[in-house]
């Protein structure tokens, strides 16, 4: 196992599995082709969140209709984990009632703290975030958007 590079350097690829667990296909796909990026109009919910550690910045906006999230979008910049997590989140929250959305966010946060186990395949793309658990310093990247959505839904605009 390994790759030979110019200069006689050989890189050993033992860590590949860990990296593959973090950067799953689904994560990189959401990072490269983010869903629901932009601003929801009319804007009934808006909340900006920063990660002072790394300078990541995410704004969540949503349009509510009949107590449901008719449209939810994210904007900002950050690492692949924070962007993919935001993209996956918007897909998951779309169409949910505010109460349902908040319950899902709370569940995700508990899962990311390792307090409850991750669900199975029924979680869809969300399941891809499980790999982040093995990288404690990256958990905050993952939960940034979720935190913003939670606070936003609590507050409104």
């Amino acid at each position: 196992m390994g790759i030979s590079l110019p200069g006689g350097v050989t890189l050993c690829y033992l860590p590949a599995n860990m990296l593959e667990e973090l950067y799953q296909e689904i994560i990189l796909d959401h990072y490269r082709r983010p869903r629901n990026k932009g601003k929801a109009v009319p804007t009934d919910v808006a909340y900006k969140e920063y990660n002072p550690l790394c300078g990541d910045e995410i704004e969540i906006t949503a349009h509510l209709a009949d107590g449901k999230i008719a449209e939810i979008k994210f904007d900002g910049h950050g690492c692949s984990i924070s962007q993919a997590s935001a993209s996956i989140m918007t897909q998951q929250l779309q169409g949910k009632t505010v109460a349902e959305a908040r319950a899902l966010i709370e569940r995700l946060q508990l899962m990311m703290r390792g307090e409850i186990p991750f669900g199975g395949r029924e979680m869809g793309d969300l399941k891809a975030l499980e790999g982040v658990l093995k990288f404690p310093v990256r958990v905050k990247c993952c939960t940034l958007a979720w935190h913003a959505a939670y606070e936003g839904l609590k507050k409104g605009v």
Partner: protein
Amino acid sequence: MITLLNNIELEEIRDDFPVLNQHVHGQHLIYFDNAATSQKPRQVIDAITDYYQRYNANVHRGIHALAERATREYELARQKVARFIHAESPEQIIFTSGATAGINLVAQSWARTNLRPGDEILLTWMEHHSNTVPWYQVAAQTGAVITRIELNADGILAVPEIGPRTKLVAVTHASNVLGTINPVRELADAAHKVGAVILVDGAQSLPHLPIDVQALDCDFLVFSGHKMLGPTGSGALYGKRHLLEAMPPFLGGGEMIREVTPTGFTCNDLPYKFEAGTPAIAEAIGLGAAVDYLQRIGMEKIRRHEIEITQYAMDRLCEFVEVIIYGPLKAEQRSGLVAFTFSDIHPHDLATFFDQHGIAIRAGHHCAMPLHKKLRLAATARASFYLYNTRDEIDTFIAALAAAKKFFGACPTGRALGF
């Protein structure tokens, strides 16, 4: 004549650092995060252990053998630091917990006493938050105004005429992001011409360059011990005697007083006036051992070694068209660090990738948010070197970067690992 460290010397140096001899994620550790904190040689670790195991006692008080020895070693450390930076006298070395504490001391003691509304505090765009926030605080307290020296495109200061409203220039000697070594003497001369004082943040220069505070003619200089092989919680403030003597104490407590009456107190002499409470004795002694270690090898030699490997790192990074290096491209103009970005791969993703290959780098804004805003960047990746780093390590780092390019870039589906 000053020569480079040869391979035997390098190996001997590396043997002194127990932490370097380990595997991380199954790979040999390569430690490229020295601008955040350096590793510690056995000599420093032993000096600290020795204090705790053989002569742990409080300083300047006890009338017993252990206290006498602790006091002697503590004061010896002060003398070592004074000699290391060519201070006029050891009394001008105030032990602090690090550069941040030194800046806050000058801000709350000197600046708060001397600044008036409308006075200007001149900073640069490349200051660490520790040389920014204390001045914002003092500006709010005194009505002084913050101004900044502009940057040229290559990350070098456009040395300005310093105006008559400037009362204080607070500048980093070496940027922790751009690496730029600033013309401190030139700035000191310009500041003194208008009667301003200059504080130099030596956190990123003292570990890497020979420093002579008298040649620099700086009024204050601060630094952190943990970035120069010493323990965390160690560091010092150097100040010109007439300034330190005129300044009111910063923290009140034991040690800093000569006499306390039912209603007041008189101050102790320098340097004790600024060292309230039991000081970090073990840390100061450890810092003294770090200074010994650096001087035994020689700062000129360390500097030559860092120029050599930093230039090598920059040259190899430039093999990638995707890489942008921030700051001057000549290693002679910078300290031993390189901040860069790689196309659209986020620095955090790069850092995680490197970490999985046993390579420790830093990613983020490196406590310099105003600079990153100015450069329109959210984050950069930073590799920072020290005397124990080698060309071979840089080769491995570059190989890992090539692998990261493949992993994140070539296969957008993420199934990058065809090898």
